[in-house]
């Protein structure tokens, strides 16, 4: 496959790993921000071929994981209403709310549909004028342009039975929050390539200066990640801290201006709660006042939400990079993808799910011991 296979070349990957090993002289902790990067690192076993001094810390960039519980509970309440067709990206369906998830709502009669694009939700609204169609508009800067476009088109085409439950989150404020959190160990960041594809990376130099950290814009394939790590290590070892773009085939400095314009027209910056982390100032997008009539929270009364988070779940510590998923006591025991306690165990981008699905709970070496640990059950 063009543009993918080349970036999965085993020989080149091992050569990059050797180059990183040559550069490194002492331990460094590097956070990959995006859940897609975490997924790729664990799926391909990239951390296994890195020198021991490099620790990859998995960041909060899984949109499904950080969507606040309150928003999930609101989604469940709205999706339960008989007049509603509730449209969502696929991996939100199994995210646990306080009591249920969207799958269970669908099982008990709710009309919940998986869409690949918010424009599909718009089409469903057009085809079902007698029903209320609600789209769960979540995600980082990556999903925002399409979500904003759907909302803009709904307005322009006067599709009055369409509304959106919006809970967008932003990467740069999360980087700041992590650097400001007590006990932070992160020395450098791999910035999320696809986020930067939309936003560019003009916001990052000030973060590099303020915190003295290298930030390298990085892609998702093994060679992309290893090249991002190589450049990060080179800066760290040289005592440098600036922004580098290691994903030039997709990202340019100013980003996608057309996408930014649509986002700016529909959304405005707001304080946002992050599941497991707490409220981060100016870290999200909400609908602008002019679009509030398309706000599902306003259209449906869902104020009586009392959230209840699992006491065992340490997703917040995982999302902040304080612990690895398999260091949580509930990991693989009370908490599995079958019975997730937190969203990080659900989404394929969630660090806990990546660790579980790719077997990071199994000791592969000793024979006759691992069969009961759950992987094959």
């Amino acid at each position, binding site marked *: 496959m063009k543009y993918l296979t080349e970036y999965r070349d085993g020989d080149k990957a091992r050569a990059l790993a050797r180059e990183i090993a040559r550069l490194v002289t002492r331990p460094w902790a590097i956070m990959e921000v995006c859940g897609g990067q975490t997924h790729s690192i664990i799926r391909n076993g990239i951390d296994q071929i890195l020198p021991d001094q490099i620790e990859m810390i998995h960041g909060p960039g899984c949109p*499904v994981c950080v969507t606040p519980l309150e928003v999930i509970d609101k989604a469940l309440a709205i999706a339960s209403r008989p007049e509603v067709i509730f449209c969502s990206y696929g991996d939100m369906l199994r995210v646990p709310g306080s009591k249920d998830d969207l*799958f269970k709502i669908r099982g008990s009669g709710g009309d919940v549909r998986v869409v690949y694009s918010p424009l599909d939700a718009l089409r469903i609204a057009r085809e079902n004028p007698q029903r209320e169609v609600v789209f769960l508009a979540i995600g980082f800067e990556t*999903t925002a342009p399409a979500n904003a476009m759907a909302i803009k088109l709904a307005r322009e085409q006067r599709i009055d039975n369409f509304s959106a439950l919006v809970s967008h989150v932003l990467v740069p404020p999360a980087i700041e929050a992590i650097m400001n959190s007590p006990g932070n160990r992160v020395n450098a960041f791999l910035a999320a390539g696809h986020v930067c594809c939309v936003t560019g990376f003009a916001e990052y130099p000030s973060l590099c200066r303020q915190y003295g950290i290298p930030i390298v814009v990085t892609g998702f394939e093994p060679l992309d990640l290893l090249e991002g790590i190589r450049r990060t290590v080179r800066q760290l070892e040289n005592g440098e801290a600036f922004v580098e773009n290691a994903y030039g085939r997709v990202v340019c400095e100013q980003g996608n201006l057309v996408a930014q314009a649509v986002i700016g027209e529909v959304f405005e910056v707001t304080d946002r709660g992050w599941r497991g982390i707490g409220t981060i100032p100016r870290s999200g997008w909400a609908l602008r006042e002019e679009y509030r009539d398309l706000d599902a929270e306003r259209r449906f009364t869902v104020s009586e939400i009392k959230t209840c988070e699992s006491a065992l779940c340490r997703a917040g510590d995982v999302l902040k990079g304080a612990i690895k998923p398999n260091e949580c006591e509930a990991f693989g025991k009370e908490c599995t993808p079958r019975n997730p306690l937190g969203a990080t165990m659900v989404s*394929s981008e969630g660090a806990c799910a990546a660790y579980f699905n790719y*077997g990071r709970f199994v000791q592969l070496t000793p024979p006759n011991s691992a069969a009961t640990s759950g992987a094959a059950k």
Partner: protein
Amino acid sequence: MNGRQTETTDRGPSENAPAEIRFDGVSCPLPLQDYPNVIMGHGGGGKLTSELIEHLFLPAFGGHPFVDLADSTVFPVDATRLAFSTDSYVVQPLFFPGGSIGDLAVNGTVNDISMSGAKPLYLSAGFIVEEGFPIEQLQRIAHDMGAAAKRAGVSIIAGDTKVIERARGDGCYINTAGVGVVGEGVEIGPKRARPGDLVIVSGTLGDHGMAIMSVREGLEFESPIESDSASLNEMVAAMIQASPAIRVLRDPTRGGLSASLNEIASASKCGIVIDESRLPIKPMVQSACEILGLDPLLVANEGKLVCVVAEADSEEVLAAIRSQPDGANAAVIGKVVSEHPGIVVARTSIGASRVITIPIGEQLPRIC
């Protein structure tokens, strides 16, 4: 890719050895309690399906020593051994590139019977049709079934038709059941894998699931991805002729290769190591999976088999598969090992490793 292909009871069971699941007394029903209603994942062929079978159906049915939850169950009648299986088909759309619900319904059951090493003989066909369904379409489906049966050399000798009220169904559902005869000396079943054996797949992975998914999601490629729907009984006959010592056969339908390999590892108490770079996957299927964020190892196949065979016999078996019209892309993909029993491990393209687990329920497309 099991989206609407929700089948809850299709793992007909094989082999004469007593089953490991305890049928006496009621198994712990606990895992079912957190889903008061059936959800799509219960038909996805993953963990939720297994739970339903183990905790709900088997305790209620009482079980039988023959039952070991393989693709088909083998049982003796006088001096002969028969293989028996049943499967229901609820695929949408009913007609798709490379096939229809009709040939799927015949091929699927023929293949389940074949996975015991049996020669499929007779099928039944039960239809649940929605009021208002075009007769012309029913005719096409029936024609496809007849043609598929002819190709597979089986006869449909029993049937049933029920009509349900308009809007109470989804056009047309089909159940088929079938029997076949197991040849003398043929002993095939997931428990029989041994360390040192090789793992072979008979062709490219994920074609059926991605054909269905592409149609459903309106993904357009230069040429459409076609389902691999095909009967495998001739291929199996050729393989058994090449080596009667074939240990395991599975057709990786729902849950894909991942579910089949995990079932083999679990039943045989051996580990399995596969080499990711050896997996035959069509570029278009790989592309579609990348676009939707799906793993081709979890995607359904309807005309492929996984075979475990002693290394000494592997070349003959591979040659036998490749001599068949649908077997040109067959490949050795891995090995059975004594390490990590019950666990399937993939060597990744960069030389690291990861565990291949069974999907929970439906595979969910990723957000971005």
